[in-house]
Every structure is written in C-alpha cells, then in structure tokens.
C-alpha cells in the first residue's frame, strides 16, 4: 500500500514537472521542472524497492544516487550557460514582439 501510494505520487510529480517544463519559460523554471521530473523518477524507483520492506533492493538506491549526481551536474551546466547569455537588449525585445510566434 505504501509502495503504491508513493508510486502514484511519483507519476504525478513527473507529470507536474513535464507540464511546467513545456509551459514555463526562463532558465529557473526549466531547471526546477527538470529537477522535479527527476525526483519523480527517483521516487518511482525507490517505491519499487519498497514493495519488499524486509528485503530492500540496493540496486535502486545505487541508481537513484547516480541519478541525483547526474541531475545536479546537468543543472549546474544549464545554469552556467544561462548566466553567460546576455540579457535581451531593448532592440531584441522589439524584434521578438514583431515576430509572429
């Protein structure tokens, strides 16, 4: 029951991240969305191992640890690149509004 509860929560978290990634703009929301999606995946993996509370599968833990570390690496690179991008200047702003999107 516990495992099912967390599995459902995991899928909803993943979906929330998915929606936010597709809908929201700006680097912070994108990175947050990716991280929430990641948390969803990790929760799904850990919930899988929680089906057997007396015989925990350590492989999922290993995978999640690897995943967390890879996620922070990706987020760091994304933030790094985003801070290197110059802010759109006034003229860019105007051209963007003119473009039919």
């Amino acid at each position: 029951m516990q495992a099912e509860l967390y599995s459902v929560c995991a899928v909803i978290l993943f979906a929330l991240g998915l929606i936010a990634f597709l809908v929201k703009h700006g680097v912070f929301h994108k990175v947050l969305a990716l991280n929430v999606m990641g948390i969803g995946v990790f929760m799904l993996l850990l919930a899988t191992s929680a089906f057997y509370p007396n015989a925990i599968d350590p492989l999922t833990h290993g995978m999640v640890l690897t995943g967390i570390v890879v996620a922070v690496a990706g987020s760091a690179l994304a933030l790094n690149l985003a801070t290197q991008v110059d802010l759109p200047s006034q003229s860019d702003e105007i051209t963007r509004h003119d473009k039919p999107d």
Partner: protein
Amino acid sequence: MPINLLFDGLLVVLILVLASGALFSTNIFNGIVLFISLGLAVSIAWVRLYAIDVAIAEVTIGAGLTGALLLGAWKRLEIKKSLHSSISNKETKND
C-alpha cells in the same frame, strides 16, 4: 500501521503541494525556496522508503547544492538585470 500510512499520505500531499508551488509560482525566488523545502520533504520520504543513503545525498546534493546553485545564479541575474536597466535608463536620458 494505519498511523504510518496516514503519515505517508500527509507527506505525499505536502510534497505535491510544495512541488506545484515551486513550479508554478510567479516569483522566482519563492520558487527556489519552495524547491529547497521540497528537497527536504522528499528526503523524509526517502527515509520512509528505507533509503537512508539516498536521503543523505538528497539533503546535501539535491536540496543543498542545487539550491545554492539556483540562488547563486538568481542573484547574478538580478544584479545583471539591475545593471542592464540602469544602463538603458542612461541611454534614454542621453537621447
């Protein structure tokens, strides 16, 4: 057993509320702070799911360092923005 399940249920609700708050808040700073709290709440969930190793990693890396990175980048962009606007203000004055 039911009391444990109740706790899990409350925790799940808390996590979902924090996540949607972090993702859909209009203020970026609030979003980041909510994300860090989400990391802490999630690490309690990891303990509940018998994964203490992962909980430690989540607190230190997932919530702590990602949060620090986000805040650092946020501050930098805020400063950049303020400089940017002051420069463009000057330009318009000169015109």
